[in-house]
């Protein structure tokens, strides 16, 4: 309990012969560096948000205390003032705290990589330390893992990290959607040989493995079914590595992948696969909900509400119902299983609370239905409301007779007028645009009685953030077929549509034209300079988002750019198919992201046809492209035939276009025959494909 006295001895000890009394350090990164919790995190950092009515960071700190940590360095960026204040006031800053905690704010940290570089400069780390983010919920004892790590360090000097992983079934609720990664482990499933972050979009892109890997390890275990707890025992050699590689941002995607890919480092990373105990990280709203679910159901014992981590007075009753003292329940109110109710809350007549979490001093009206709703402190909910699995933040006021669908987020202090129906995707906040200049866009929705709310929309400008947007929902869409196939665009696709409906924002003709022009130019430029397809996707997305363009526009621009690129490349008849094949193959991910259904295929083909009209070798090209798209499964026979049969869009066909179409005649005929041959099979397949979408 006297860490200061111990520090002296820690200094004396050598680097590798770890003396048992060396101070055990932990680094918490109290920033997620993403926006999945917007708009709530506009006002409060994620780690201070209540989870089962206790701030998330408390769980992390308790977990580290359980692990016997003696010194904590807490790095924060966003809302650092709030975090500093919270820690200063908490029990962890008192003399009785099991560890010393130091809050470090640096304006320059924008990623995990920045924190590690900062750490390297600060020279605060002397020994191997525990690296976690500020949103871990876990009850595993770290001692055993630390012991294992130390033993390994003595045996293998190159071991620089032990990661805690958990096996999890693919459709588990707590599995973060859209965060998939492939781990390649050795025979004994101890050493991590390779890490590959799996992008949702191009699941078919090949994965590169170091050549020597296969030779050195004849037996490997490929596993995608891991929940990465983001709890790492990290060697003190790691922060300097980050300094060396100044472009490393992410601890997994960049660091882990990079260190294992590069033979030069010769470093090894090990995995600790949990067999018991609970560990989870709140990475998104979906995992927030899932972990709350687990906490209520005592998976995280002893860290459940009735442990009263934060000086509460929760009592547990059968059926996982937790009630604090001074809860006022009307006689006819029904509290069903898995509910948490904070002190000072009153619940009106005939109200049904099932699986809901309610904070302190809330007033719930009469005849209200709360199903899995997450209500924070001081919320007022009027009579006859019905709320689904949504988040209602502090001081929000929901008028009488409102319906809030699952997945909605009502941020701090928002007032919802009587009788409003709030859809799934709604995010309301009171924060004004001024504070959020960079990218957040807001629409003011003025309600009848001059009360205004701001609807939060996040305009994403890079691919990662788009994925995050798709993870933002409390209810990420349940994808039916293959888990790893969530399309990014599935969610994004809805947004433009919604925008149009909701706010009647018209995208004028000129806007669409300017998007076409810009997209065309940027794509053509990228193709000519042979940029990677990822960059193209990124640019195109950015343009699309900023111009609020439809996907059909995207297809048109792409078709135009691709055709003019191909035409410029082709010099003779011979290399036609070669050029077409190479180009289409390269752009596969791009096409994948704009084709969702049969109509899209037909449309794309139509655009291509139109672009080819009047061009030299138009017909041949059409056939080549059509064939290639067909072979790459970008088009199926249905789409092809649709294009063939239904002619070309509203403009009709010009004679030149007809000429182009005739060029592809032979191919289409062949497809038709194929289709008839394998009629039954094809049908099944196409059905499946439709399901996928």
């Amino acid at each position, binding site marked *: 309990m006297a860490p200061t006295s111990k520090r002296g001895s820690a200094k004396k000890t050598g680097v590798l012969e770890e003396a048992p009394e060396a101070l055990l350090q932990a680094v918490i990164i109290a920033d997620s560096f993403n926006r999945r919790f917007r708009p709530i995190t506009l006002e409060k950092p994620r780690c201070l948000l209540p989870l089962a009515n206790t701030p998330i960071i408390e769980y992390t700190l308790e977990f580290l205390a359980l692990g016997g940590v003696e010194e904590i360095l807490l790095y924060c960026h966003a809302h650092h003032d709030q975090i500093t204040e919270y820690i200063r006031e908490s029990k962890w800053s008192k003399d009785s705290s099991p560890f010393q905690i130091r809050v470090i704010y640096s304006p320059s940290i924008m990623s995990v990589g920045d924190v590690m570089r900062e750490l390297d400069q600060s020279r605060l780390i002397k020994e191997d330390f525990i690296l976690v983010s500020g949103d871990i919920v876990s009850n595993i004892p770290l001692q055993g893992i630390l012991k294992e790590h130390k033993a390994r360090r003595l045996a293998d000097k190159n071991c620089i990290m032990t990661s805690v992983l958990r096996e999890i*079934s693919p459709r588990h609720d707590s599995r973060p959607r859209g965060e998939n990664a492939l781990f390649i482990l050795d025979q004994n499933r101890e050493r991590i040989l390779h890490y590959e972050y799996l992008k949702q979009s191009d699941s078919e892109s090949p994965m590169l493995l170091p050549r020597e890997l296969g030779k050195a390890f004849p037996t490997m275990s490929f596993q995608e079914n891991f929940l990465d707890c983001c709890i790492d025992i990290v060697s003190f050699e790691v922060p300097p590595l980050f300094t060396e590689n100044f472009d490393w941002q992410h601890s997994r995607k960049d660091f882990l992948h990079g260190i294992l890919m590069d033979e030069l480092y010769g470093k090894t990373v090990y995995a600790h696969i949990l067999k018991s105990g*609970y560990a989870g990280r709140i990475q998104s709203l979906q995992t927030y909900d899932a972990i709350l679910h687990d906490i209520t159901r005592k998976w995280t014992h002893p860290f459940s509400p009735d442990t009263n981590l934060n000086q509460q007075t929760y009592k547990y009753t059968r059926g996982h119902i937790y009630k604090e003292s001074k809860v006022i329940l009307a006689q006819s109110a029904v509290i069903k299983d898995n509910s948490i109710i904070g002190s000072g809350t009153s619940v009106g007549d005939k109200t049904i609370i099932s699986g809901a979490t309610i904070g302190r001093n809330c007033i719930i009206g009469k005849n209200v239905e709360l199903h899995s709703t997450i209500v924070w402190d001081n919320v007022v909910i009027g009579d006859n409301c019905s709320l689904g699995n949504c988040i209602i933040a502090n001081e929000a006021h929901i008028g009488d007779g409102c319906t809030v669908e699952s997945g909605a987020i009502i941020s701090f202090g928002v007032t919802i007028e009587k009788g409003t129906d709030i859809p799934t995707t709604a995010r309301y906040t009171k924060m004004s645009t001024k504070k959020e200049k960079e990218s957040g866009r807001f629409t003011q929705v003025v309600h009848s009685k001059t009360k205004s709310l701001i609807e939060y929309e996040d305009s994403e400008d890079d691919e990662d953030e788009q994925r995050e947007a798709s993870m933002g929902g409390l209810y990420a869409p349940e994808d039916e077929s293959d888990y790893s196939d969530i399309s990014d665009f599935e969610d994004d696709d809805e947004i433009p549509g919604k925008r149009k409906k909701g706010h009647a924002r018209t995208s004028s003709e000129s806007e669409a034209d300017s998007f076409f022009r810009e997209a065309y130019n940027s794509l053509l430029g990228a193709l000519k300079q042979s940029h990677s397809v990822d960059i193209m996707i990124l640019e195109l997305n950015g343009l699309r988002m900023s111009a609020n363009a439809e996907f059909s526009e995207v297809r048109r621009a792409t078709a135009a750019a691709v055709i003019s690129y191909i035409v410029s490349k082709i010099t003779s008849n011979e290399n036609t198919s070669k050029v077409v094949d190479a180009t289409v193959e390269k752009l596969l991910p791009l096409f994948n992201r704009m084709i969702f259904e049969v109509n899209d295929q037909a449309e794309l083909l139509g655009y291509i046809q139109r672009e080819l009209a009047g061009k030299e070798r138009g017909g041949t090209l059409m056939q080549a492209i059509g064939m290639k798209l067909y072979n790459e499964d970008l088009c199926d026979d249905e789409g092809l035939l649709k294009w063939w049969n239904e002619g070309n869009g509203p403009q009709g066909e010009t004679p030149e276009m007809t000429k182009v179409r005739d060029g592809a005649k032979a191919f289409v005929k062949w497809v038709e025959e194929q289709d008839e041959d394998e009629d039954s099979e094809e049908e099944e397949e196409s059905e499946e494909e439709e399901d996928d979408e």
Partner: protein
Amino acid sequence: MVVADEYPPALAKFLKSVTSVKADDATEILTGLLKRREIKSSRNVAKAVTKLLLRFVSQNRHTKLSESQGLIKDVKDLGKTIIAAQPRELVIGNIVRRVLGIIREECHDSNPLLGFADLPLGGRLSRASSIGDESADLGSNPGSGTATPYSGRPFSRDGGEEDIDAMSRRKSKAYIPPNPRDLTRQGSIALPNPNFGENNLQHALFFLLRLQPEELPNDSPGLKPQSKEPFQDKDIRGDVIEGIKELMDELELVDEQVAAHSETHIHANEIVMVLGSSPTLQAFLMKAAVKRKFTVVMIEAYPNDSRATQDVLKAPSKFTTPTGLKQMGKNAAKDEPLTTAEMKATLTSVGVETILIPDSAVPAVMSRVNKVLMGTHVILRNGSMITTAGARTVARCAQEHSVPVVVVSGVYKLSPLYPFDPDSMLETGESSTVIGWADSEMVGNAEIINPTMDFVPGELVDHYITNVGGYTPQNLYKLVEEQYGNANDTLE
């Protein structure tokens, strides 16, 4: 055991650190440890709380006899804080009440007139004048306490009309220092075992002797002591600390004292069914094994204890040691509770035939069993108890087969509380011990509850064996009174 081993030796660390930090900080440290369940078994909790109270009392600003009221209040407040940290660990309340009893006893010993520490001190003078009224109470309260032990109970004699203040005052007047009386009583009650603790008997006699001169003036109501010698504001701290240290010794010796009864309860060639893995139970069986040859049927206690069992069955060599008796000494001193499996291993090594059965086999085996032996988590005032989950089923089954259920426990586990709402006293543990969390089908669709404890009503228990003798559940309230007197401290 695997899991338990991985936790830091939290208790050892706490016991070491408690002397070097301020009492307030030590309280918070212990609160944290209890909340994180780093200290779990009732024995360990009791040890930690006793040590903390020792530190607290030795640092408290109230040292004088006249300040005893303040000390009692402080200890109560401390007790409330620790109990709030783990309300289901009733042992905390027991220890705090015991210490309160020690303080009151010291007050009484130092100055019999002032001894009723619950009296507001301001009322000391007026008390002298009013003592005549109360003398009836005191007078009827026999000094030796053996003849009519319950006559001092306040509820039976005080009318319900009085306001609560008056009630509690009177109650406290009727308070009898616990230790001397309970030990005297032991001499007379703990008959089942003639060998029972010579030590204790000597103690009892000693107390009888020591009490004699002090109790006398009490019987003849009056101002005798005050007139004999002027009131001295004595420093009671040292004596209280001495008392707490005795309590700590009791916690150390409890297993041996309980085990001393084993020979009278386990007979040759008996088949004993055993549930639980407490060190007390282990010592009890070990001691019996020295002289008797018997068979133990161990219940697996799935799921909270079973994993360790299976581990051991896979690799038995790890746990078996040739010298079982030495093992006994070692294990008794160990901090972590023994698991079922460990106990099995050591029992086998001393030559007891041990059979491990799953919980589901209990009814099938019950008809062949002579006796069911259990450890316990806490014993309640009305003779019911809270113990390992599954115990109630076992006890009920035993009742059906008319097999006696015998529970071994240290007297420190005896709580003066009454189970008005037994459910609230039960701890619910990790769901993951029942179903693997990775099993999404189950996690998503099934509600899983894993109570780690069971409430066993007194009707299902036949006999309690404590370190101060054997009791039937119906008679336990006497022991409660001896331990805690009539002081009714609300700590929860």
